[in-house]
C-alpha cells in the first residue's frame, strides 16, 4: 500500500485496485511523503466512499480542519457506533467533524448557539444524548475545552440523524475496534481477562495488528506452509477453535477475511497466553 496523498499527519489517501481510499491512523503520515509505503501497523480506519462528492468533502475536511478536532470527532463516532451497535452513515464523518470544529472555534470566541430543543432532546433522543455527554468528556480531556449542554444537544441530533440514515454506502474498516473484538473473543474463550496495561496485552495487540495486515497482492502477513498449519490445528485444537470464532466474527462484522495462515498464527498467540496465564 502506497501513500497517494497526505491530508494531515493522521490521514492519507491510498489508491488500489478498488479505487481511492482514505486511511486514518495516528501519525500515519509522520515523516512520510507521497509514494512512500504505508505503515500498516498505524492504520486505524479505512474509508471507501462510494459517493465521490462525499469523498472529496471528507478529503477537504481532513486537510483543512485542525487535526485534534478530527481525531476527537473520529473517537466520538467510533464510540457512538459501538454504543448504538450500527455503522453510522458515512456522512457523519463529514457532518460531525465540520460541526464540531466550527462549534469549537465559536466557543473559543465566546459565542454559544442556544439549543431551543435541549430539554426535549434529553428525553426524546436519550441514547444519543448520552453519547453527546461522552463527547463532552472527551473534548474536555483531549482538547481542554468545556462545551455547553446546548452543544451536547446538537451532537446528539447529528448522531441520531446519521444513525437512522445508516446504509451500506461506505465500507469503513475500523481496525482498532476489530482487534478489540478479537481480544474480547479470546478472553471469553479462555475465560480470562487481560488487563490492558500489561506487556502481555500490548504484545497480543501488536501480534493481532500484524495478523490483519495485508500486502499489495492481498497475501497475509504471515505465510505458513500447509503442513505447519495442519500441525497447529492438531496440537492446539482449543486455541484454534477460538481463533476460528474470531475469524467468523471479523467476517460477519467487518467483512474481513482472515487467511488460514493468520488463523493458525493467532492460534499460536492464544496458546501462548493460555499456557502462561493458567500456569
Amino acid at each position: 500500500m502506497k501513500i497517494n496523498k497526505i491530508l494531515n499527519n493522521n490521514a492519507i489517501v491510498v489508491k488500489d485496485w478498488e479505487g481511492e481510499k482514505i486511511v486514518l491512523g495516528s501519525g500515519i503520515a509522520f515523516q512520510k511523503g507521497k509514494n512512500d509505503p504505508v505503515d500498516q501497523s498505524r492504520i486505524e480506519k479505512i474509508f471507501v466512499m462510494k459517493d465521490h462528492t462525499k469523498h472529496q468533502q471528507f478529503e477537504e475536511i481532513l486537510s483543512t480542519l485542525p487535526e485534534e478536532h478530527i481525531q476527537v470527532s473520529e473517537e466520538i463516532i467510533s464510540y457512538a457506533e459501538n454504543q448504538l451497535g450500527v455503522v453510522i452513515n458515512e456522512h457523519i464523518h463529514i457532518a460531525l467533524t465540520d460541526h464540531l470544529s466550527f462549534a469549537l472555534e465559536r466557543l473559543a470566541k465566546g459565542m454559544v448557539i442556544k439549543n431551543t430543543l435541549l430539554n426535549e432532546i434529553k428525553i426524546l433522543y436519550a441514547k444519543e444524548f448520552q453519547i453527546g455527554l461522552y463527547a463532552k468528556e472527551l473534548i474536555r480531556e483531549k482538547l481542554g475545552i468545556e462545551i455547553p449542554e446546548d452543544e451536547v444537544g446538537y451532537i446528539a441530533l447529528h448522531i441520531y440523524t446519521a444513525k437512522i440514515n445508516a446504509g451500506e454506502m461506505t465500507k469503513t474498516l475500523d481496525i482498532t475496534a476489530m482487534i478489540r473484538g478479537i481480544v474480547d473473543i479470546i478472553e471469553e474463550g479462555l475465560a480470562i481477562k487481560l488487563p490492558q496495561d500489561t506487556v502481555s496485552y500490548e504484545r497480543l495487540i501488536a501480534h493481532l495488528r500484524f495478523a490483519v495486515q495485508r500486502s499489495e497482492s492481498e497475501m497475509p502477513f504471515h505465510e505458513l506452509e500447509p503442513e505447519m498449519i495442519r500441525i497447529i490445528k492438531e496440537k492446539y485444537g482449543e486455541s484454534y477453535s477460538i481463533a476460528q470464532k474470531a475469524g467468523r466474527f471479523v467476517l460477519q462484522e467487518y467483512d474481513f477475511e482472515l487467511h488460514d495462515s493468520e488463523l493458525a498464527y493467532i492460534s499460536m498467540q492464544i496458546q501462548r497466553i493460555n499456557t502462561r496465564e493458567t500456569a
Partner: protein
Amino acid sequence: MIKRWIGMQQRKTEETIFSPISGRVLPMEEVPDPIFSKSMAGMGVAIDPEDGKVGSPVDGEIIHLFQTKHALWIRADSGLDLLIHIGVDTVCLNGEGFHHYVKMGDRVKMGQPLMNFSLDLVREKATSPVTPMFLIHTDQIEQIDIELPERAERGLTPLMKVKVKS
C-alpha cells in the same frame, strides 16, 4: 392468547395525523429556529396558532408531558411517536400560561382537548408562537405525505399521512 393475537392484527399501519391547533400552516423550513428549519429534528409541519387551544392530532397515548409544559410526546395507536412543541424557545416562559387537561399515560382520542396556553404570553415572551409538530423517530416511517394547506382547523384538517414501518 387469541385476544392478543387479534389485537396485534388490528395494529394500524397507516396513520393520518390531524392538526392539533387552528392556524396558518407552514413548512418546517420556515420555522424561525435552525433545529427545525435545517431539518435537524424529525419530519413534520408547523402551525402559526390563532388561539391557545391544543387538541390531540391522533388516537393514542400521552407518553411524556415535559416539565416546561410547552411540549407533548404522544404515541399514536400505530406506534408513531409525535412531538408537539408550542412556540419557538418557549422555555423562558417556564410553563406560565399553560394548562394541561391530560397527564402522562392517559389515552386520548383525536381532537380531544390536551391543553390550553396563553397565545398572548407566547407571542410576547417566546421567540415565536409558530408551533412545530414532528415525528420523533424517523425510522418508524415507511412513507410520509405532508399536506400544506393555507390554513388548518384543529381536529379537522389532516396534515400528514404516514405509512408505518412494520
